[in-house]
């Protein structure tokens, strides 16, 4: 057969394969391209996501509340696209349906943070992150399940029942942004938004096999996000690829007059993903735990071996403070901030009264109030603030030798339903490899790097403060040489 004909047949076949793909399975950049070229409409794209959600939401318990106006907004988006071909320059997410973690306030749409305290709460204002997405033309599909108040790493402590991991019917998705990562993994949206205090984007991204980007603290505004630990809370994107996550970050990042802790840079952009310069990559040896689940460390080492083929990447082993100190610091600081932040929920101005708090929130508030109380403040809270300095300095020191750090995201695979029962420190043990960088406010990414027992393994990149560019470039390179991120679970 002549070569030309063969190529023609092959490309024809590829096209057919592509057509078989459902619209809801598209990445954000593919969906945008399709909308721009008028291959399909926003109504069709939104409908595909809603169809998938309608079919499977009862089983996977991903969305708590749907946005009844999504369809109307998609129609409006289509009208705008038809009218003005240059509209995407002003509205870079026009017509793209997305899922939002339920701790972001959405005006006139129920927001619960998965707690019965806020069971009937209808916000009267909108979070900065969702405002920016709305202004960019994105269409909110609904609000996703999470650990109640974001207290946890499983989505099992939700007052509305656990979310099921699309990769295993009896598995947890991780958390606290487990609803958002499961929404992306199950193609119930084109992208999702989560928030991380210590691991809540990266760890569920790892367990659900999607790309989770936790920006530097202050990169994305916390305004309108129901506060957990205010000194580490960081909103961020969850996508099907790192290129998608980067695209979203460019829209939601930037100084906000409503958040005094936001980084004083008007916007954030990364123009080229190419690795042109030599990059020193530090392999965090302490994060390959001896008692990690079988296969996790080996899978991550294989991913590192794949990366080593790039001559611009120089790898060295580095050592960080034992993660057990980060667990201790985080336990004290997070609970202290929680006890203060949850003090405002009195059921008078909105929500239900304090008898509606479930046991995890009570446990955390109690320990926080204890560590802040007279006689214990110096021994607990003050000591933790000092140890936080030690952790920050530890990273500063290692970043004089390397430009970026690499390790597993989670020492284990998605755990079975029920794993949190009777585990007072469950979240901290799951987040052991992400807590230190959160305490220091550093940016981090988790990308899928393989499977063990049909469950995804997460590869983690940690960057210097405000250096999202470096970790995004590395993750993007990894996703060009592998296709683990393209693997999809069988949803049924």
């Amino acid at each position, binding site marked *: 057969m002549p070569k030309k004909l063969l190529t023609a047949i092959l490309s024809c076949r590829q096209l057919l394969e592509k057509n078989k793909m459902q619209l809801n399975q598209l990445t954000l950049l593919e969906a945008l391209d399709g909308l721009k070229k008028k291959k399909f409409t926003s109504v069709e794209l939104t409908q595909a996501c809603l169809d998938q959600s309608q079919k499977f939401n009862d089983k996977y318990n991903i969305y708590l509340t749907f946005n009844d106006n999504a369809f109307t907004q998609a129609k409006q988006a289509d009208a705008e696209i038809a009218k003005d071909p240059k509209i995407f320059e002003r509205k870079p997410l026009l017509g793209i349906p997305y899922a939002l973690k339920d701790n972001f306030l959405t005006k006139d749409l129920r927001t619960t943070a998965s707690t019965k305290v806020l069971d*009937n*709460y*209808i916000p*009267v*204002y909108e979070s900065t992150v969702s405002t920016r997405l709305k202004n960019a033309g994105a269409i909110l599909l609904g609000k996703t399940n999470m650990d109640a108040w974001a207290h946890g790493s499983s989505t099992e402590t939700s007052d509305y029942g656990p979310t099921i991991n699309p990769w295993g019917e009896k598995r947890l998705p991780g958390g606290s942004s487990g609803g958002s990562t499961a929404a992306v993994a199950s193609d119930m949206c084109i992208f999702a938004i989560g928030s991380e205090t210590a691991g809540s984007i990266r760890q569920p991204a790892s367990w659900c096999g999607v790309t989770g980007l936790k920006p530097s*603290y*202050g990169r994305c505004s916390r305004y309108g996000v129901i506060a957990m630990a205010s*000194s580490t809370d960081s909103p961020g994107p969850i996508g099907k690829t790192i290129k998608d996550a980067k695209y979203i970050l460019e829209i939601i990042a930037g100084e906000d*007059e409503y958040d*005094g*802790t936001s*980084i*004083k840079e008007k916007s954030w952009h990364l123009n080229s993903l190419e690795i042109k310069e030599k990059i020193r990559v530090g392999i965090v040896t302490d994060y390959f735990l001896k008692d990690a689940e079988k296969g996790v460390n080996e899978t991550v080492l294989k991913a590192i071996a794949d990366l080593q083929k790039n001559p611009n990447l120089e790898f060295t082993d580095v050592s960080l403070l034992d993660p*057990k*100190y980060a*667990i*201790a*610091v985080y*336990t*004290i600081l997070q*609970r202290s901030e929680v*006890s203060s932040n949850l*003090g405002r929920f*009195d*059921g*008078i*101005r*909105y*929500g239900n009264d*304090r*008898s509606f*708090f479930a*046991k995890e929130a*009570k*446990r955390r*508030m*109690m*320990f926080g*109030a*204890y560590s802040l*109380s007279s006689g214990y403040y110096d*021994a*607990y809270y*003050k*000591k*933790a*603030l*000092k*140890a*936080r*300095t*030690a952790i*920050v300095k530890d990273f500063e020191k290692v970043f004089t030798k390397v430009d970026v750090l690499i390790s597993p995201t989670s020492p284990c695979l998605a755990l079975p339903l029920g794993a949190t029962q009777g585990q*007072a*420190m469950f979240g*901290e043990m799951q987040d052991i490899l992400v807590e230190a960088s959160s305490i*220091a*406010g550093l940016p981090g990414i988790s990308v899928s790097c393989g499977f063990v027992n049909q469950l995804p393994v997460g590869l983690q990149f940690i960057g210097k*403060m405000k250096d999202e560019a470096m970790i995004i470039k590395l993750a993007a390179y990894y996703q060009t040489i592998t296709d683990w991120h393209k693997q999809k679970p069988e949803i049924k």
Partner: protein
Amino acid sequence: MTKNLTIDEVKHIAKLLNLNLQESEIKKLAGELSEAASYVEVLQELDLDNTTETAQVTGLTNIFRQDEVKSSLSQSDALKNAKKTFDGYFVVPPTIRKK
């Protein structure tokens, strides 16, 4: 520094937090809080005497804005989620009762 929390201590903390706990919860929490306290014990291993404290990591200080009046929530929006209102006010539980 760690010790097991007593029932009275747990009751005291619950009072600070305005939480009404059942006796069974109090007993359980005493155990769980003591366990959490044992996890943070490791900080004693670090020499932190000459270390300063870090409360936030942005390096930002004194973030102010001009003292200008800007639009904010309307009265009806502010009251929208309240269970009890009266004459444009929130109704709060009594804090002082007659004996």
